[in-house]
């Protein structure tokens, strides 16, 4: 990995990449990584790889899944059997 002489070095930027992609860093740390990625051609592909991977993973979410009516009835039946009375 190339040493970039930025605010943070490549090692530090790469260590923070997942947290950066998840937006789990403090605003200052987010800025540090963002600035580094803007200037470092070595680290940018790693960021792009992580971004593509997480975007693909997010598509596996069952976005439209709703509990089937039969399941709702089943849940209510089991709750009533347990004494639920609303």
């Amino acid at each position, binding site marked *: *990995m190339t040493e970039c002489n930025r605010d943070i070095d490549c*090692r530090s930027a*790469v*260590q*923070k*990449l*997942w*947290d950066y992609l*998840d937006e*789990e860093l403090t605003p200052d740390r987010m800025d540090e990584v963002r600035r580094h990625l803007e200037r470092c051609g070595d680290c940018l*592909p*790693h960021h*792009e*790889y*992580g971004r*593509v*991977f*997480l975007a*693909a*993973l*997010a*598509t*596996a*979410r*069952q*976005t439209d*899944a*709703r*509990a*089937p*009516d039969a*399941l*709702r*009835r*089943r*849940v*209510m039946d*089991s*709750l009533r059997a*347990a*004494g*639920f*009375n*609303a």
Partner: protein
Amino acid sequence: MDERGGPAGQPAPSPAAGTKDEDARFVPQMTAPANAAREDDLRFEAEALPYIDDVYRFALSLTRDAADADDVVQETFLRAYRSWHTFQPGSDARRWLFTITRNVFLRSRERERRHVDIEDGDLEALSSFAAATDQERDGSDRILSRIDLGPALQRALNELDEPFKSAVVLVDLEDQSYEAASEILGVPIGTVRSRLFRGRRILQEKLMTYARDAGFTTAQRGQRGSKDD
């Protein structure tokens, strides 16, 4: 819920119209404990049951099987109802239900659980991207961006072991923060981070295996992934 008897928080309709004194003669008087139980049930109906779709989706992401998800959801709400008295009013009911859902799921898979030692989160973060670095070098990132990952991801998630699956599902599929995942899983944030990064790394490796099995070559850097045969 479709089965609701009426709006939450409203008293049951009186069987007899009239003055308050007349009502008192016709309506069976509930004891104080019965009243409290009724209030709890109404709160459960208003605060927990509306999350049945969220719980179902989370269960489906964990089990990857509709019938298994149904079982998990039913058990989740039954356990939630029985322990409703432990729920802190005003706290996040969805998060509380997710904790129960995950525990129910784990119990259902107890025999299949394989324990894997967790290492330091920072090391995992670094090694995860180190793997990415190697893959980037041989053009694998370009393949991942071009092939249809849907079937491979479904299979990879099916095969992903606990405790990594729950961390990945919560953060990457359910869009929960590390802090929320930490609360749901009952572990420190550093452990969430470690499990998440390890889980992602395993998924990446599985996807690259899928790409190779599907005949996508990684030899031609910068070119479109092509079938070898």
